[in-house]
């Protein structure tokens, strides 16, 4: 092996254990892997989408210890010991307000939008200091415009079961 390839191949997989959608997972990850890619290509959870790859569009939103993050900006090794939840963990009904309000179209942003919306629904106390629009600002949609998305979140907040979790 020459010096160059030694640099290119410096570290073997990092063994990690974390909780994924409520179940423990153990695997070896490339130190350079992004959580987004590990979820999609190593764990076959393809609901999480890549949009911009720079932390702007929010299509790759997952919960890390209960808080929305962009999985394109999380090195996978950092989630060891933590709790990761993806769009696959949501009840199918989480999408219904968006369908009723015309807030879905091409679908690229939808998994991330529904993840952030469901987080707001579980934390209505945030609305004492933040508007729905501000809390949803990290999820870009290029099809529907944002009024339908904001209306959908408001509708979801009115449904029974809102505020049920305490993360």
């Amino acid at each position, binding site marked *: 092996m020459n010096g160059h390839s030694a640099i290119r191949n410096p570290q073997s997989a990092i063994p990690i254990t974390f909780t994924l959608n409520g179940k423990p997972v153990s695997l070896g990850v490339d130190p350079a892997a*992004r959580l987004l890619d590990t979820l999609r290509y190593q764990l076959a959870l393809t609901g999480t989408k890549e949009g911009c790859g720079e*932390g702007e569009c929010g299509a790759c939103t997952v919960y890390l210890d209960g808080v929305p993050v962009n999985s394109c900006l999380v090195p996978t090794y950092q989630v060891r010991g933590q709790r990761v939840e993806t769009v696959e963990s949501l009840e199918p009904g989480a999408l219904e307000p968006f369908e009723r309000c015309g807030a879905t179209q091409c679908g690229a942003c939808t998994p991330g939008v529904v993840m952030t919306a469901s987080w707001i629904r579980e934390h209505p106390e945030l609305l004492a200091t933040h508007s729905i629009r501000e809390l949803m600002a*990290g999820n870009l949609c290029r099809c529907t415009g944002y009024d339908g998305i904001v209306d959908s979140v408001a509708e979801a907040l009115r449904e029974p079961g809102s505020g049920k979790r305490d993360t």
Partner: protein
Amino acid sequence: MNVLLPGSLPEALDMLASDGAAIPIAGGTDLLVHWPVRVDAHDRTYVDLSRLDALKPLSWTADELVLGGLTTYWDVIRDARAAQEFPLLGNAARQVGAIQIQARGTWAGNIVNASPAADGVPVLMAYDAVVVLESRRGREQVPLDRFYSGYKEMRRHPDQLVVEIRIPRRPYSYQVFEKVGGRRAQAIAKVGLAVTRSGAGWRVVAASVAPTIRRCPAVERLLETGTAIASPEALLPAVARDVAPIDDIRSSARYRTHVMARLLYHDLRDFWGKRG
């Protein structure tokens, strides 16, 4: 990519001391942008800070707010006392991306990323924040307004970590943060401005109009001396002394200079020509 995983601050400082090229990584919100195509960055060694729990909380002393080296924007946004005593911190934090970034991005990371368009740095500088650097050689405190020496150049040595950001607690009689971007959310500043007034005097800090975030001593002097200013244009000579904007993909030097003068003129209209 080589990742070192220290379990404690002394261990992390040892790793930084023994590899001068190692890069500390916290929330990754700057380092991982467009990561798959940044192949050169994959060849480097990183020291992971994510398990250094002692650096996470923010704390209060009798005369300072102390942000830890890993305190996030969201930590400050959720702190009711910070919102009351240092409202500009929360104002700026709420304009750094949205929750997905605010939950991961750190104030210390904003300082050492050294972007001229940073949102967190201007408000810290307007509050006279002091950067506490630690290495195996000891601790060093550097006032934030003397931390940068040029574009992406700063007084952090490769073996040093930002372990604290100390902000003196003072009564403020005036404070404002302005960010002008292409849109209200998810934008990078074309012009940023943080202004405070306390017993220590006026602080005027400009963003996105120079190679670094910087104070504006000429404008501060106009305020301290109570110079009468009758229009935004009257501020242009002082603004020109303080800032050095460029044309880039987000804006033009001319636009930035004029917007800076207008923000200053209108925000501070109650103070021009009034001393004390």
